[in-house]
């Protein structure tokens, strides 16, 4: 009997290995929610009520949906950037810093470039954010290809540098003197991303981000550089032998990747906060790694995974209110997703 079960499981699992990866992503999410449910039961609340409240808050009203989408927006943009870099096997964990760098540059352009028409001002503000992010990504990329310095360390460490620089700027030159707290003055109105859905904060940046996801899908699968990125990631040596200038490809990939993270910061500043605020990114750059991995580094799927994580963030306090389930349960779910995604990648590839 036992033997039969073992044989049966063995047969199943070998099939399981051939499971399409979208299905495994869905299973990961399901499993994470189930494990979250265990915690909710353990504290004596009802998982159905808790998850119900979470879903209602995240998607149950126009405003809730809008709030979910504006949270998804920076996650999506940074997640797209991370997907690109990871496809080239460049382990960028500096998206958080790149978001802040992008936010600062966007804020400076939005604050001080007077007299521009709205369209031009918004474009310049977002471009400044992209340049800020890209600049921050450039150095780790350069160190990687020139000196072989591990990019995980350089990108991670730069995060702290940038966040401190932002704090300095907000305590010093960029501070709004009229306000009691460390925030910059409001951006000029011409640098605000327009609101798309009346009476909510749903801004144009969300549509822009979704559009970019489609564009990047096309870029990865339909352009020469996209092909080269994939080839360099799959097997560096083979790509090199095949005539691809791998170092050059890595630098371009990282520039694009960090520009996207910078854009995430710019969109948050110009679309939501309308000023530079000290903690305007509550760890979007790190969460975006999970977003990218759960989306299997596929731009179109990253759209959905970013919405999922945004819904968790957005619905968390509603869940706390309605079902008396503390917010950290959400972090458990997020953590389980991350671990399981790592496991499923391990299962597919044998290693990261």
């Amino acid at each position, binding site marked *: 009997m036992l033997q039969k079960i*073992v044989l049966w*499981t*063995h047969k*199943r*699992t070998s099939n*399981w*290995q051939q499971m399409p990866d979208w299905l495994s992503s869905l299973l990961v999410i399901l*499993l994470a929610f*189930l*494990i979250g*449910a*265990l915690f909710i*039961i353990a504290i004596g609340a*009802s*998982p*159905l*009520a808790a998850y*119900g409240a979470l879903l209602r*808050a995240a998607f149950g*009203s*126009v*405003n*809730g949906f809008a*709030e979910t989408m504006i949270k998804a927006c920076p996650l999506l943009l940074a997640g797209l950037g991370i997907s690109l870099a990871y496809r080239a096997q460049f382990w960028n964990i500096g998206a958080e810093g790149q978001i802040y760098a992008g936010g600062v540059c966007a804020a400076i352009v939005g604050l001080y470039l007077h007299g521009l028409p709205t369209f031009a001002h918004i474009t310049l503000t977002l471009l400044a954010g992209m340049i800020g992010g890209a600049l921050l990504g450039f150095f780790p990329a350069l160190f990687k290809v020139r000196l072989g310095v591990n990019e995980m360390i350089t990108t991670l460490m730069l995060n702290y540098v940038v966040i401190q620089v932002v704090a300095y700027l907000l305590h010093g030159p960029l501070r709004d003197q009229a*306000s*009691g*707290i460390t*925030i910059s003055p*409001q951006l000029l109105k011409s640098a605000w991303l327009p609101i798309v859905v009346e*009476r*909510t*904060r749903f801004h144009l940046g969300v549509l822009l981000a979704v559009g970019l996801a489609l564009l990047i899908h096309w870029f990865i699968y339909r352009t020469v550089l996209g092909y080269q990125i994939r080839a360099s990631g799959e097997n560096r040596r083979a790509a090199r032998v095949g005539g691809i200038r791998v170092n050059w490809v890595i630098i371009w990939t990282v520039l694009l990747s960090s520009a996207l993270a910078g854009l995430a910061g710019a969109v948050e500043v110009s679309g*939501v*906060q*309308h000023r530079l*605020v000290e*903690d*305007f990114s*509550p760890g979007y750059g790190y969460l975006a790694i999970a977003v990218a991995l759960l989306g299997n580094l596929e731009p179109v799927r990253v759209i959905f995974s970013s919405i999922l994580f945004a819904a968790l963030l*957005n619905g968390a*306090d*509603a869940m706390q*209110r309605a*079902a008396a389930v503390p917010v950290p349960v959400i972090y458990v779910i997020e953590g389980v997703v991350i671990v399981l995604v790592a*496991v499923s990648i391990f*299962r597919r590839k044998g290693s990261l």
Partner: protein
Amino acid sequence: MKKSKLFLLLSGLCLLSIILAACAPATPTPAAETKKVRVALVLDGKIDDNGWNQAAYEGLKEAEAQHGVEIAYSEEIPIPDYEKALRDYASQGYDLIIAHSSIAKEAVMNTAKDYPKIAFLWTDGDETRENLAVIRPMAQEASYLAGLLAGKITKSNIVGMVGGIDIPSTHRSYAAFEMGLKEANPEAKLLVNWVGSFLDVAAGKEAALSQIEAGADVIFGNGDGQNIGVLQAAGEKNVLAIGAVRDQFNVAPNVVLTSVEWGFRKGIAEVVGDYVAGKFSGKVYEIGLAHGADLSPYHENASKIPEDVQNLIKEKRQQIIDGKLSIPDISSAQ
């Protein structure tokens, strides 16, 4: 083999949680009631912070008890998320939404503009709309009384004030405190520190310790979270102290003589009462002694205050309430 074990483990967990989920009690459906007025409160700190946020939460509870409203609150909402929290409540159709923050101006104005049919209350605000009322805590009266107390009780003739951020509401409290102090004791010197934060407990403590070092024997903590640090420092050094915003006796029972209460508890209950009675309008509620701002009771430290000082304060307090004495509102350094 390894993988199949993992699979077993995971599927086992799956099953277990499904079973447990099925066992969980269903949510009780609330019995249909007549529609209650729903009031929501958004806070940037915890409801038990012994100060700013607790004062507002107590106001909400009092409103619930007095006016039978249904209440909800969100605590620890950072400024970048403030507007989200307000919009959350607005889109759920709450009737009255209270933003308890001196610094969330745009969040309040934007949300109030987008939801003209919902009433908003901004505590410690400086701008109203048709659907947005404002509480202006007029703490100068109680602060003046606290100044009298400090002036009478100091032996070193050095008194310290550690403020949070220098905004109108804290400034008028500071100015009136100094006025009372000088009136009671022309010799007394006031050391002034603004730590530039309403949350930084450590900074408040540092500033208070340095004032104690400089010889201050009464310390007035004037603000929000940094007050906790101020009072802790005083408690450790056994130096008399005066709290603010809410009765802060609990923070350091050995030294806290009294606190300058800003009156949020009664103030918020008053506004909710007006709403329930259909009298809400976008007006400014000035909360002074007559509306619930006051000096807190002396509790166990009453014995440290001489009878004649207690009588003097009682007398001045009555004069203010009767309108015989008015304390100027100096809300900025000009």
